[in-house]
């Protein structure tokens, strides 16, 4: 029976396509073209931004967009870096870029260390109050703390973090989601992994550093990526905390360039926007898997 079915299947491969199958093939192509067009349309605002950031100011607000006015190789002739030069020279966007990188990288590193240590203890060590404390941490995840802007601002001031990058970096490490994510991962690690090491007389700190951290690279990458988008794009908290222009991160810099009431430098705004989004996009293209897992990882929980 099995053999017959198999030969039949094989046979159908050789047999010419029936008209119905032909139509189905055509429908498939149309569907694919339609969805690809939809995706490109969805990306259009972004494509416009990427294109316009290299165009001279007079072409920025061309209608229809300059890119549609003639063949690409004709319109690409007007490409230049003048918008970027303006952004860097007039608005110190270079400094904002450095600030953004500095804040994001240090906050991610701090998050990974702090959350991983706590996650390790919550997952693998037994101590009185463990579940109670963990439950309280989970609850804070649901709370919309950001509505308490003024008290938060006062806390930052009291702790001497006002107008400092540390005022953004340190609070980010208190990521309840991070502890939760890592704990769930550590709890599923095979016990044998740690037992052997403990038998050999390794301390917990050593087990954490030499065994747990290396095997949890995928989940650490997921958390790093999650924190990266959150911190890189954070707007409200830096707006509250960073007063000095020299400390501004990219989103605040954009707000500052835009806050000029008359004759806004839209060319500088577009160039700065380009810088602010190109880094996450490149990082995404490099680590697509971790991004998607960061979202869908919670599906499995």
């Amino acid at each position, binding site marked *: 029976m099995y053999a017959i079915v198999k030969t039949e299947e094989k046979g159908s491969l050789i047999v010419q396509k029936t008209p119905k199958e032909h139509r189905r093939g055509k429908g498939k192509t149309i569907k694919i073209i339609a969805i690809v067009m939809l995706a490109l349309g969805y*990306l259009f605002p972004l494509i416009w931004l990427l294109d316009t950031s290299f165009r001279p100011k007079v072409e920025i607000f061309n209608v229809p967009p300059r890119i549609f006015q003639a063949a690409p190789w004709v319109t690409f002739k007007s490409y230049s870096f003048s918008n970027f030069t303006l952004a860097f020279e007039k608005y110190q966007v270079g400094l904002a870029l450095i600030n953004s990188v500095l804040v994001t990288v240090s906050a991610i590193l701090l998050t990974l260390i702090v959350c991983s240590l706590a996650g390790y203890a919550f997952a693998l060590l*037994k101590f009185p109050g463990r579940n109670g404390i963990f439950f309280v941490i989970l609850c804070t995840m649901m709370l919309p703390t950001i509505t308490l802007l003024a008290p938060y601002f006062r806390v930052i001031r009291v702790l001497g973090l006002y107008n400092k990058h540390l005022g953004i970096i340190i609070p980010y490490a208190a990521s309840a989601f991070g502890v939760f994510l890592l704990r769930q991962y550590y709890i599923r690690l095979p016990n044998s992994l740690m037992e052997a090491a403990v038998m050999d007389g390794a301390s917990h700190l050593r087990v954490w550093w030499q065994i747990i951290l290396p095997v949890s690279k995928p989940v650490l990458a997921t958390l790093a990526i999650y924190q990266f988008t959150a911190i890189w794009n954070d*707007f409200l908290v830096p707006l509250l905390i960073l007063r000095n222009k020299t400390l501004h991160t990219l989103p605040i810099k954009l707000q500052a360039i835009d806050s000029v009431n008359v004759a806004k430098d839209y060319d500088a705004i577009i160039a700065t926007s380009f810088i602010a989004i190109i880094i996450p996009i490149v990082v995404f293209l490099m680590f697509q898997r971790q991004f998607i897992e960061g979202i869908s990882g919670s599906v499995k929980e």
Partner: protein
Amino acid sequence: MSSTVAVRKKHGGKFFRFSKIEPYLYIAPFMLLIIAFNFYTFFIGGKMAFTDAQGINVGEWIGLENFTRLIFNEPDFWPAIGRTFLYTFGCLVTQIPAAFLLAVILNSTIFGRIRGFLRASFYVPVLMNSVVAALLFRMLFNKDTGMVNWILGLLGLNNNIDWVFNPAYTMMLMIVVSFWQWTGYHMVYLLASLQAIDPTIYEVAKLDGAKPLRTMFSITLPLLRPAFTFVMVMSAIGGMQQFAYSYMLFPNAGYGPGMKALTGVPFIYRIGFSNNFEFGYATAAGWLLFLFILVVSLFQLRFFGLGQADEV
């Protein structure tokens, strides 16, 4: 490190001496941070809401005055809360069905190799700064030079619409930006949930002669219920705390024409940080919004089911 090992070897036990406090040392950095930035904020906020604190001035205890002023005498408060709900509702009813539709389309087998590209294209706006998205859409919706009116003109429709400065379009504009930025996020989540469904269930249904529509309503949707709840709760919590669009989509931080873009958090920011620095008053408003958000998320969890979330 070597000394502790030596100590342990001498005692011959499995754990070394301070093993009792050791776990607490590991959670200490995290606990200190969460106490400082969460619990301490709640503590200070609990007091501040009942004072007339202004800026760095601690102020005096004034009882419930901030709350009564907000609820009975503040012309902007209830409209701001109403807009918060309207915005959040608008985001939910547009984004989640669209995200689900996209997820179902992308889940179909015909997209084998280009699925990654499609998923990435819908996801990329998620990576963008909300400030950039707001500024970008302000330009796209510009009356004279924007792409939207140009396309409307191509289609032969009325293209003389002043999207940014006409208060009738303010809320719609914010919902549109949010749609563009966040639909892809929900789509990726729902797509992952779709792919987590055991394919044999569908095979059995097919053998039983179930039609695609029937399969959708009797199998897919019920199985996705926890995913829908999760997406809805997260997107409601996010929507109700929205700030960047109100602040950046319309020129000059005016919260839109006639302040029609002033939702909850921007309202709090405005009274706390841009007018008279009324910290006590802003904190009272913060607690009320805090309560609204909490009620909405608990209601959603209750109404749509906790799903798997209660197994934590």
